[in-house]
């Protein structure tokens, strides 16, 4: 479910990142109030834990393996806000250090796996488990269904994010710019794999892990139960965040049409009402150097490759000069 860069447009990823900022803000404020000075090592270790369990390959039906996310498990044991921050930190380390999940798609990945999954899973869990404070059949059932629905909701959100790309972001010829699959493909594909394989796995792992924690470290389990008891205010905040996010999502969709920054002078004119003088001049000059991007007798594709190679050589020369100057200064500093 880690979405890589390349499948989502910046018009989706940037608003998703912006929408995550207030969520992180609220989570940080909540945790500051409830967890005291101990919060940093506790959340950090939780984050390291969620990172490590994502490396556990667990056998599923059909002889293949999958990994659990553990978001609902953390939400049940430490509360959904703690799950939000610790999973976000784990996702950032995964994206930056291990290349798992895109850097630009970090906000979207956090939204799916650090907000939708723990909050939906936790809400379902509380609904079924009620105020029960120890692991019983009822709480186990709540954890099972909660984690199953949690991971499937996150998958559904990811499927919608993928599926809207070919609708809103395509070239003038109608070719997809990002994810090429439409909603009728992405939703069944994601829900099939998560509903049949990843979902049951997540549910089994969550319940078994909770059972073991409540058996061998019951104090850890009950202690956190006290802290995470939900109240009306929290619910209101949650509803507020989700409504805000739902309202924000279409903002990204408004930016359909030509890819950002690739407007031609006519499009610029329609957007701005005039063509900036610099662009008008540059347009004239460039066509003066290579008219219609083709040289007499040479195929157009070769001209493209030739121009690209010239560009790369220019970049190489600039980088070489910069490198020499920078290292010269650094060496002087060292000496």
């Amino acid at each position, binding site marked *: 479910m880690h979405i890589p*860069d390349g499948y989502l447009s910046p018009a989706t990823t940037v608003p998703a990142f912006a929408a995550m900022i207030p969520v992180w803000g609220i989570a940080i404020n909540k945790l500051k109030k409830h967890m005291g000075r101990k919060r940093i090592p506790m959340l950090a270790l939780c984050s390291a834990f969620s990172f490590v369990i994502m490396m556990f390959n667990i056998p599923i039906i059909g002889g293949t393996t999958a990994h659990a996310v553990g978001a609902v498990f953390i939400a049940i044991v430490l509360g959904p806000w703690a799950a939000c921050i610790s999973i976000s930190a784990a996702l950032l380390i995964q994206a930056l250090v291990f290349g798992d999940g895109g850097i630009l798609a970090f906000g979207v990945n956090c939204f799916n796996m650090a907000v939708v999954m723990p909050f939906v899973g936790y809400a379902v869990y509380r609904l079924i488990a009620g105020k029960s404070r120890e692991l019983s059949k009822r709480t186990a059932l709540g954890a099972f269904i909660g984690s199953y629905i949690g991971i499937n909701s996150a998958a559904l959100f990811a499927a919608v994010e993928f599926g809207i790309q070919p609708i809103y972001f395509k070239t003038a010829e109608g070719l997809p710019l990002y994810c090429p699959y439409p909603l009728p493909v992405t939703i069944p594909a994601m829900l099939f794999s998560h509903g049949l394989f990843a979902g049951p796995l997540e549910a089994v792992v969550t319940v078994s892990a909770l059972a073991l924690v409540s058996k061998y470290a019951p104090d850890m389990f009950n202690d956190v139960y006290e802290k995470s008891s939900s109240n009306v205010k929290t619910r209101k905040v949650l509803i507020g965040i989700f409504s805000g996010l739902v309202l924000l999502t279409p903002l990204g969709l408004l930016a359909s049409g030509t890819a950002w920054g690739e407007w031609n002078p006519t499009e610029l004119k329609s957007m701005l009402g005039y063509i900036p003088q610099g662009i008008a001049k540059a347009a004239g000059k460039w066509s003066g150097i290579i008219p219609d991007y083709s040289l007499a007798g040479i195929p157009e594709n070769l001209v493209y490759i030739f121009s690209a190679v010239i560009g790369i050589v220019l970049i190489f020369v600039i980088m070489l000069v910069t490198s020499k100057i920078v*290292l010269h200064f650094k060496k002087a500093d060292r000496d």
Partner: protein
Amino acid sequence: MNNVMPELPVWLISPENNYNPKRGRVHFLRKTISGITSVFQTEFLAEKYSDSFGLLQSIDPRVKIITVLFFIIFSSAISNIVVKVMVAFTAILYACFSKIKMIDFLRRVWCYFPLLLFLLSLPAALNVFTLGKPLLYLYKNELYLTSGGLIAAARAALTCGVSLSLGYLLFTTTRMAQIEKALRAMKLPEMFVSVLAVAYRYIFVLAKEANKVIEARFLRTVGKTNAKGERSFASHSIASVFIKSQKLSNDVFDAMSCRGYTGKPVSLEKLKIHLVDYIFIVCNVIIVLILLLGVYAFG
């Protein structure tokens, strides 16, 4: 581990689990062990390169973060394949000038995720999804790969590769402590940066603990095991790692308190923008201008 002997070769830190039977699937325990081992290898490579005397290693981490983010957004926002290739080459050139071994760079960046994304996008290149000029007929004259679909698949793979390249460059040429400082200087919430910093350090500790559990089980496993037993073992290991992580968090807090931790981290060194950073910014502005020229020329 790597702080003690940064010159330790990769093969020496790999566990001896090279036995791969020709038939049958890879056992889940072996898969998990190799996954955890790759974490240590990544850490090892990062330590190895962040100390080299190269171009990116000499630049202020804040400038590097902003440059990397800019190039990632730029490459994601443009649709032209040729310009995307140029950005990819820019990242490769930066790797060369930062003394990163090309084999490490290409293996880590281009050999897995972009390839996977390209293959995943290939079915969308069929005329069932994307109409366009036929490029390769698969079944009579009815099912074929379209050139437009292939370009769309290549575009997604290139964007993914460029993003991975730049992220890899940032991480391998900058120590994690420097990235933390830069994030603090860029006014990210203190708590989030601290959680990130401590989590990064303790991932290796917890991964080591998890590896011990998995290796112990792996060494004692003979013959076939049933999937149910394997799942219950994995769940119990996850619970045991969680209990360990919570106990460790108490120990870490006590250790931090003993060293005078009051809730606010103290940094002994302040980041400062030097002349070389300005030169680097100018270099990138020129590169972006060349790329923009490409955007304009190639359409």
